[in-house]
């Protein structure tokens, strides 16, 4: 069977599975819609969190990014896993004890203010929309390459699937589909990795394989460093980014991870505080399987690509090359007309451009793996993108129906009315997300990376101070969140979208890139919050009591909608 046939079969099977689960786990109350009735087992929640978390960017783009940037790619590996330590130790248990439905719920109650609540809702919406655009794009990319439909049609198909199970099942449906999606995506990621690791090094464990030697007895990483030097690139195992930038990007991604509303809300779905801690541990374990494999894939793919293409005759390139050429994601421009592919660091002589996003998708083809493996990767990429999109949609819809409509506009709304509002806002959110997917701002990972900066700059300090600093009051928290997110938005627009006079790399403040700037904005948020709080009245006694109460684990009851 050819690749396309396999892909239709595997994608069809997995989609049927997701829809089946959604029908079986429909949500009947707002508690089920927002937090799955708070009855999810910690391991199931760990699986769901891992799928929720690992997006199109993790699955499709990350190994490719690392493949092209070598050591510099470590920022994603450490950044997107280290945040879970912060989540498990500093946020998840206390937020679960607090026991409401959303992050703005916590901010609104802890800072006894609807202004704080609204600011938090706006931050949640900005973060989630920035993030979801990348997911829809990922879905479109997979459809266009493997099923040969137009990229925009792909986005629309993805929209319908997500819509179906997010609207029907709410958090309950999403949780159990995400468990299935994790299994699909991890299987799809690991199978080719293991195959290739055996092919190249004889070691079936990719994590060890990329530190081993190939058939010629030379360590793979040494060989790659050598190839890089030959072609004029920086050494693979050392970076080209400045140390300060690597430091700040890693911190922004870590803190951003811990501040992402769609991740935090997953810890509201378990029964008790100790389960929230456990879920975070399981989630990171499941995530680590993919994250420790990705750098191995990066090395295999990079070595394979250079060896297959560099200085080879264009007429003799393998079939996958032409397949990807038609999507425009690989381009060859024979500048010196010698009919050979010159792939070098020097822009003036380089003749090959390869899009970072295709490294994982093309990898099985490059390594000549069987067709079903290639199709499996397509199904896995779709699982990764859809599961994250669904989690984000839920945050968006609950922000609108719960935090805005129920808590501010119409507190008397009936449970049924709120549930309808939640479903309607999910529909609107999907349409907006689809629009972003069809008109994307930048390539997938870049947009996603910025969402972390925004989350780091806004939520993280407000939540941490709310738990660990009893004296923190509403004036400080509101000012901090506003200053943080505005500063981050300003920097992002200035250097990414060329607004406010724009600027180049040389104009970066202290040499910190927009991706790393979230750390600076976060620090500014902390300082602003604490300064303002020390000049304004301390929070009322009942709020200080809330803080004391969330610090001890016992007595975390059922979800309550008051």
């Amino acid at each position, binding site marked *: 069977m050819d690749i396309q046939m396999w892909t239709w079969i595997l994608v069809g099977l997995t989609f049927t599975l997701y829809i089946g689960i959604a029908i079986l786990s429909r949500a009947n109350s707002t508690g089920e819609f927002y937090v799955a009735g708070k009855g999810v087992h910690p391991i199931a929640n760990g699986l769901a969190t891992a799928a929720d978390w690992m997006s199109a960017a993790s699955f499709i783009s990350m190994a490719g990014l*690392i493949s092209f940037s070598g*050591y510099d*790619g*470590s920022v994603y*590996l*450490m950044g997107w*896993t*280290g945040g*879970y*330590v912060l989540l*498990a*130790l*500093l946020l998840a*248990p206390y937020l679960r004890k607090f026991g409401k439905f959303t992050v703005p719920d916590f901010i609104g109650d802890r800072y006894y203010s609807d202004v704080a609540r609204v600011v938090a809702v706006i931050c949640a919406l900005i973060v989630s929309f920035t993030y979801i655009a990348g997911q829809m794009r990922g879905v479109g990319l997979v459809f266009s390459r493997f099923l040969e439909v137009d990229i925009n049609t792909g986005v629309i198909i993805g929209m319908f699937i997500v819509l179906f199970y997010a609207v029907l099942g709410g958090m309950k449906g999403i949780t159990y589909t995400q468990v299935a999606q994790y299994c699909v995506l991890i299987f799809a990621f690991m199978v080719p990795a293991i195959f290739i690791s055996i092919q190249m090094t004889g070691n079936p464990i990719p*994590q060890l394989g*990329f*530190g*081993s*030697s190939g058939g010629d007895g030379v*360590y*793979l*990483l*040494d060989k790659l460093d050598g190839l890089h030097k030959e072609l004029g690139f920086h050494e693979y*195992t*050392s970076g080209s980014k400045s*140390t300060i930038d*690597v*430091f700040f990007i*890693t*911190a922004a991604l870590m803190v951003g991870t811990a501040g992402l509303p769609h991740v935090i809300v997953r810890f509201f779905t378990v029964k*008790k*505080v*100790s389960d929230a*801690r*456990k879920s*975070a*541990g399981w989630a*990171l*374990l499941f995530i*680590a399987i993919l*994250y*420790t494999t990705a*750098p191995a894939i990066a090395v295999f793919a990079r070595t394979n690509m250079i060896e297959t293409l560099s200085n080879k005759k264009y007429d003799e390139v393998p079939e996958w090359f032409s397949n990807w050429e038609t999507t425009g994601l690989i381009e060859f421009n024979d500048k010196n007309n010698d009919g050979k592919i010159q792939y070098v660091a020097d822009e003036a002589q380089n003749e090959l451009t390869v899009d970072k996003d295709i490294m994982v998708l093309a990898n099985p083809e490059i390594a000549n793996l069987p067709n079903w493996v290639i199709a499996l990767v397509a199904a896995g990429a779709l699982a990764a993108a859809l599961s994250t999109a669904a989690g984000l949609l839920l945050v968006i819809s609950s922000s609108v129906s719960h935090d805005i409509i129920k808590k501010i506009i119409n507190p008397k709304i009936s449970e049924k009315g709120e549930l309808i509002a939640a479903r309607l806002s999910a529909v609107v959110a999907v349409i907006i997300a689809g629009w972003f997917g069809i008109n994307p701002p930048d390539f997938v990972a870049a947009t996603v990376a910025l969402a972390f900066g925004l989350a780091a700059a806004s939520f993280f300090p407000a939540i941490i101070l709310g738990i660990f600093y009893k004296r923190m009051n509403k004036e400080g928290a509101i000012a901090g969140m506003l200053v943080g997110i505005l500063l981050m938005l300003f920097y992002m627009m200035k250097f990414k979208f060329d607004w406010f006079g724009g600027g180049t790399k040389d104009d970066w403040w202290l040499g910190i890139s927009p991706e790393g700037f979230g750390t600076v904005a976060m620090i500014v948020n902390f300082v602003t919050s604490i300064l303002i709080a020390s000049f304004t009245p301390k929070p009322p006694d009942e709020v200080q009591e809330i803080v*004391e109460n969330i*610090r*001890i*684990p*016992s*007595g*975390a009851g059922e979800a309550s909608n008051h």
Partner: protein
Amino acid sequence: MTDKQKAKAYWKKNLKYLAILLSIWFLVSYVFGILLVEQLNTIRIGGFKLGFWFAQQGSIYVFVILIFVYIRLMNRLDKKFNLDS
């Protein structure tokens, strides 16, 4: 001990655990993986340079272990203070 004192003692112990675990978290990622990466890269384990290995593998393994250690410590602490629900 009154409930209030108990809660205070529990919180103090929790903060101590956090300080220790987060120092290790900082050490394996920011110190080994970023600040001292070049120095550590002079040491090799098989095909890996040590600094590079910490940045792309080791730190992640340690993160997982840190959370599970925290889970254990806290479960024990909850029991000791009778705060497990």
